[in-house]
């Protein structure tokens, strides 16, 4: 049977890890044998109360990270798409160059930005000093207040071209006649944008929103390479906490419990999203 290997692997990949994680989250895991003892919800209780994990702050920081990066990527991607959809002569080459950051491996872009943002000797601080703005030069990644936003910028830099490409693809389907008709009817630019452009790319945006949210929740590379969760946990998100619990502290019970909570959060988000999507589709969209 042609599909047998694939089906088996898929089942293995979906079902087994899920069950194993759930089981581990309810157990104490002893290394190196991986013997488990059932402890009920003790791991979850530990996570919520352990000040070393700081669940409250962790959740808050993760939400900040996800909201911040998704917003930044969408804002940059949307504006860039509108700019390059205008098809002004001599901008085609620009479009090609703007996409470049997206093609970079994540470790490469993280290292690149770590180098640019180095305190004092990085090119950003050097340039600021060169312009006489010494006051603005800053230890971007070393200061707990600026570390997270700094990594957000690097992360968004690497990802906004993807949003741009998606939106551009969506805009390509809009006939110019629609705008002409709108203008004849006396619509201003905001109305044209709101009632022609936005509906045209709505489907694409919805897909992009899920993908980007999941990716932001998942993101590990950029944060790990640029700051490793520091300074003073300022860039520690839920993903990094799972890694730290499992592979720095070797507490697989805690890591699994953190994973289960993250999985539940992801499922909840998806359910809310699909419900909202269905509700909005039930109403006649202004197409």
């Amino acid at each position, binding site marked *: 049977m*042609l599909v047998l290997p694939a089906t088996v692997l898929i089942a293995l990949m979906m079902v087994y890890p899920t069950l194993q994680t759930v089981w581990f989250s309810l157990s104490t895991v002893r290394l190196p044998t991986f013997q488990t003892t059932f402890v009920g919800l003790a791991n979850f209780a530990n996570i919520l109360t352990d000040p070393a994990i700081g669940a409250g702050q962790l959740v808050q920081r993760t939400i900040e990270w996800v909201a911040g990066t998704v917003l930044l990527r969408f804002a940059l991607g949307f504006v860039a798409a509108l700019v390059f959809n205008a098809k002004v002569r001599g901008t085609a080459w620009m479009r090609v160059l703007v996409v470049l950051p997206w093609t970079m*491996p994540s470790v490469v872009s993280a290292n690149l930005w770590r180098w640019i943002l180095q305190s004092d000797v990085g090119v950003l601080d050097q340039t600021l000093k060169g312009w006489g703005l010494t006051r603005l030069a800053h230890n971007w990644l070393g200061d707990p207040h600026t570390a997270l936003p700094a990594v957000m910028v690097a992360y968004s830099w690497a990802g906004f071209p993807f949003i741009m490409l998606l939106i551009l693809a969506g805009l390509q389907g809009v006939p110019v006649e629609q705008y002409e008709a709108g203008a004849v009817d006396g619509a201003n630019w905001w109305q044209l944008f709101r009632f022609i452009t936005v509906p045209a790319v709505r489907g694409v945006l919805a897909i992009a929103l899920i993908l980007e949210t999941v990716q932001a929740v998942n993101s590990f590379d950029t944060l*790990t390479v640029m700051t490793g969760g520091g300074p003073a946990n300022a860039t520690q998100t839920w993903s990094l906490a799972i890694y730290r619990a499992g592979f720095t502290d070797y507490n697989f019970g805690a890591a699994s419990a953190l994973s289960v909570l993250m999985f539940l959060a992801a499922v909840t988000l998806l359910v809310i999203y699909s419900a909202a999507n269905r509700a909005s589709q039930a109403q006649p969209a202004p197409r």
Partner: protein
Amino acid sequence: MTLLETQGGAPRTATVPETRTRKSRAGQHVLVYALGLLFVWFSVGPLLWGLSTALKPEVDQYSFPPQWIPSPLTFEHFVAISHNHAVIRGFLNTLIIASSTTAIALLVGVLGGYGFSRFQFPGRTTLLWSVLFTQLFPRVVVIVPFFITLRHLYLMNTLPGLILVYLMVVFPVSIWLIKGFFDKIPVEIEEAAVVDGCSIPRLLWQIVLPVAKPALIAAAMYAFILAWNEFLFALVFTQGLDKRPLSVALAFFIDENGIRWGDLMAASLLMSIPAIIVFTFSQRLLVRGLSEGALKG
């Protein structure tokens, strides 16, 4: 910028005087051009700085004001990384991992995609679910169970182990992409071939595969780029210099003297080249595939 949207329509309305629109149109063009340049600088500036770092001697790295154009130009960093065991080993490991993942993903993708496209059987919808699953499931969540599975299989800290893990992520997407293409090929062509005495393997090889080339390219690229760039799984499932791929080697690129940024940027360039080639080669194809469900890892 949203003004740009109106430019196709506004000038042709009778109520707006011709001169005014021409002037505002020119203004819009300037605005678009300026914003475009701004985006180019934002995107390319950091890359140019990395390139400049890779091409100038160590003493100039911290010079003030920052030196964008290296003088003197040097290739000493490229020479240095060609003697760097971690980088060379990592590069070879990554090459082996990415090409094996791609080859196996294509093979299984073709067989699975054809099967899912042409035969009815129970559990067909698992495919769609598994595609969604691999794309939407938080990847950090599976590192613990995968870790244990690999230990059981004695594949921890081996290249085949890492390839297996990547295949699990890549399979559903490659099958999905290829199946979508097979769906569009009319069954009648195949029926005619079979009537003429063509076997199924030959049918696949000589009739179906050539037609499905774009899907195969897309699936291959997806697999290759994912395996080439991946960092989290590589970090967890390998230890020591010998088995580490390039991504991990570059993430911990530090010696007793701290980080040699020139060397690191030279090695980063080495790591980026395959990705840049693959992406520019087939940007449009990829975006079409992406907007239909798959995505960059």
